[in-house]
């Protein structure tokens, strides 16, 4: 076996280890979108309908934002193999995340025909905090990224080999991105337009077939634009919504600049190397989406690539970097690490280019600097792993829903003792979580003003609330016994839920 192949297998093993190790427990619990995806996936698997009873829908209503189908059906397949658990829910993201590493290697081989850069890029993506973060949770963006790169891969293969079937594969991959993540409704068409314009000559020999193919792709893609019903979500997160009341002229004046401001924010160095976007689900406190040690290598890479700016591969990287935050810039908050996940690909390639450019410098200072960077990189990677596996579950207890699972498990244990279980709406997502974890758990989900009905006078009631007794005026007025508390896993052990017997 060749040395390159051994290294590539090693990188893939590392990528899969980093993506799958303790994936069911870290991040801490499934967050609300994961629960929604998994519940729909489960109902599809068992009954062939979504949570609203629609048979095999193309778009899932979910919370009213209409989720794309690919992730849900993939999760359904994963559940059929691994069962209804956290591992099965997160498996598709981790699996496609690992495959993306291999795909990046192949893509760079086509673009630069340089094994060293291809291996380095694959390695850097394998260990990238940005890509790891979104591969270890059920995020549609990770799966969409894979299909987007696959589309580009086949497109570039078509450019080299002029085989029509490659174009068909490329088209299908691009269509799948539409059905996976909303941002690609903008990114993919732009990519296709630029690709077709740039490689117009390559299509000349397939003119007749091309018309039929284009028509087929349009038919496949059309439902996304006509029926996906994601408009509510778009307006909710739109960067322009706060200026909805101003006149048309004012809009014309302000909107382009808002877009530009958001777009530029994605290239802000503090976002990329220090703070990330600040969301607990996206950010390991103390780390940016890229490592600090990558900054100088990134700058060297930019210079090295700029010198070869007329090369096709370099132009593709530049294009990817420019296009990656385009859809994300339409929304707030900006910058947003999830919506701009595609940026990780060109940035990783640029850093790899920087590493190679650095290494190829023959002088002693460069070598010493290179060794220093390597040592610092090892230290920073160790720090990242430490922060991710030790600090992250504690710091982001509020962002992930691990405590809901505990509440449901405890309620299930006590179900025999208590004929009536009442859950206060201060534990707001309880119905969604219980649908997934324990559909058989029967309880009454009540508002803040709930009072024990007179007919329940002799019944023992298990009352679960997020409020403490001082805030819950009703509890103060009736006899109650404290049973147990469920705490957040954070440093202060804040109380998530309290169990009372009424």
């Amino acid at each position, binding site marked *: 076996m060749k040395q390159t192949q051994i290294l590539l297998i090693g990188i893939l093993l590392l990528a899969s280890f980093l993506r799958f190790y303790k994936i069911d427990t870290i991040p801490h619990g499934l967050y609300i979108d994961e629960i929604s995806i998994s519940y729909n996936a489960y109902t599809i698997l068992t009954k062939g309908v979504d949570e609203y009873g629609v048979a095999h829908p193309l778009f899932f209503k979910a919370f009213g934002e209409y989720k794309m189908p690919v992730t849900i059906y993939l999760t359904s397949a994963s559940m059929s193999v691994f069962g209804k658990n956290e591992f099965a829910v997160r498996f598709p993201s981790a699996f496609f995340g690992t495959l993306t590493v291999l795909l990046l290697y192949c893509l760079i081989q086509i673009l630069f025909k340089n094994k060293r850069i291809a291996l380095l890029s694959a390695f850097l993506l394998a260990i990238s905090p940005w890509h790891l973060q979104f591969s270890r949770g059920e995020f549609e963006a990770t799966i969409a990224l894979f299909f987007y790169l696959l589309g580009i891969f086949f497109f570039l293969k078509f450019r080299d080999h002029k085989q029509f079937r490659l174009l068909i594969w490329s088209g299908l991959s691009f269509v799948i991105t539409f059905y996976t993540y909303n941002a690609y409704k903008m990114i993919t068409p732009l990519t296709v337009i630029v690709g077709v314009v740039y490689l117009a000559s390559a299509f000349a020999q397939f003119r007749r077939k091309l018309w039929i193919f284009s028509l087929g792709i349009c038919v496949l893609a059309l439902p996304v634009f006509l029926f996906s019903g994601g408009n509510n979500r778009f307006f909710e997160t739109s960067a322009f919504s706060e200026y909805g009341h101003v006149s048309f002229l004012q809009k014309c004046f302000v909107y*382009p600049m808002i877009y*530009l*401001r958001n777009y530029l*924010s994605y290239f*802000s*160095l*503090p976002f990329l190397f*220090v703070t990330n976007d600040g969301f607990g689900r996206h950010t390991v406190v103390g780390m940016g989406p890229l490592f600090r040690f990558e900054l100088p290598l990134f700058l060297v890479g930019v210079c090295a690539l700029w010198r070869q700016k007329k090369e096709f591969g370099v132009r593709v990287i530049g294009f990817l970097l420019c296009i990656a935050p385009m859809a994300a810039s339409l929304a707030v908050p900006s910058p947003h690490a999830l919506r701009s996940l595609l940026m990780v690909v060109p940035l990783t390639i640029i850093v790899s280019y920087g590493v190679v450019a650095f290494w190829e410098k023959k002088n002693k200072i460069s070598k010493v600097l290179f060794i220093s960077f390597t040592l610092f990189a090892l230290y920073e990677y160790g720090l990242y792993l430490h922060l991710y596996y*030790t600090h992250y579950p504690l710091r982001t207890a509020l962002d992930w829903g691990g405590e809901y699972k505990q509440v449901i498990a405890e309620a299930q244990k006590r179900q025999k003792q208590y004929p009536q279980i009442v859950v206060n709406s201060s534990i707001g997502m309880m119905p969604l979580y219980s649908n997934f974890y324990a559909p058989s758990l029967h309880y009454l989900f009540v508002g803040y003003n709930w009072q024990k009905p007179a007919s329940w006078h002799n019944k023992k009631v298990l009352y679960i609330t997020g409020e403490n007794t001082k805030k819950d005026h009703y509890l103060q007025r009736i006899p109650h016994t404290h049973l147990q508390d469920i705490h957040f896993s954070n*440093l202060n052990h804040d109380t998530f839920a309290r169990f009372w017997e009424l």
Partner: protein
Amino acid sequence: MKEKILLFLLLCLELFAVFQWFHCRDFGGQFHYSSSEVALRLLDSIHNDRNVPLWLVRVFHNKIAESVFVLFAEYLQFWNVSFLVSFISLAGIVGLGAQFYQFFTIKKKHVLSWIVFLMLIFVPFIEIFASGKFSFLFRLLIIAFPFITWSMMGFYALVEKQKMNSKIVDILLLLSLWYLCALHPLAMFCTLNK
């Protein structure tokens, strides 16, 4: 002649962007080093280390590493695109980039380039470490000087030497003015006078 007018207009634009900062009391956000902040961050990190061997805690959460990371974060604020847009305008950033490219690709560098480059690299440390010792206006001018000079050197190289299409610079100028007028980019980084 047209090139000189363009350069003059660009300089005016950058000075105008800096002039807007005169209303501020200080840079807002994470620009200033504080040892107490480092200590707090350390305490916070250490408290999250449950069931972790002490040597590991010491390796990852010590004053040296934390200070370096805090300094890195503060230094990077000066290279934040959003900050630079409000500091020296959108056009200013293009000039900065152009001059960096010039500087790193040309083998024989002018002494003046070296001086401005070193100023540019080290001047943010004045703000990071000595924020309380000098007035904001003084610090602002000290920091703005190398940024504007470097940017103008970049434009000079683009317009005079490389004969960059002046229409592009025209558009850039308009775009920068448009940005400054349409939004108030200063707000994110400026602590206003009461």
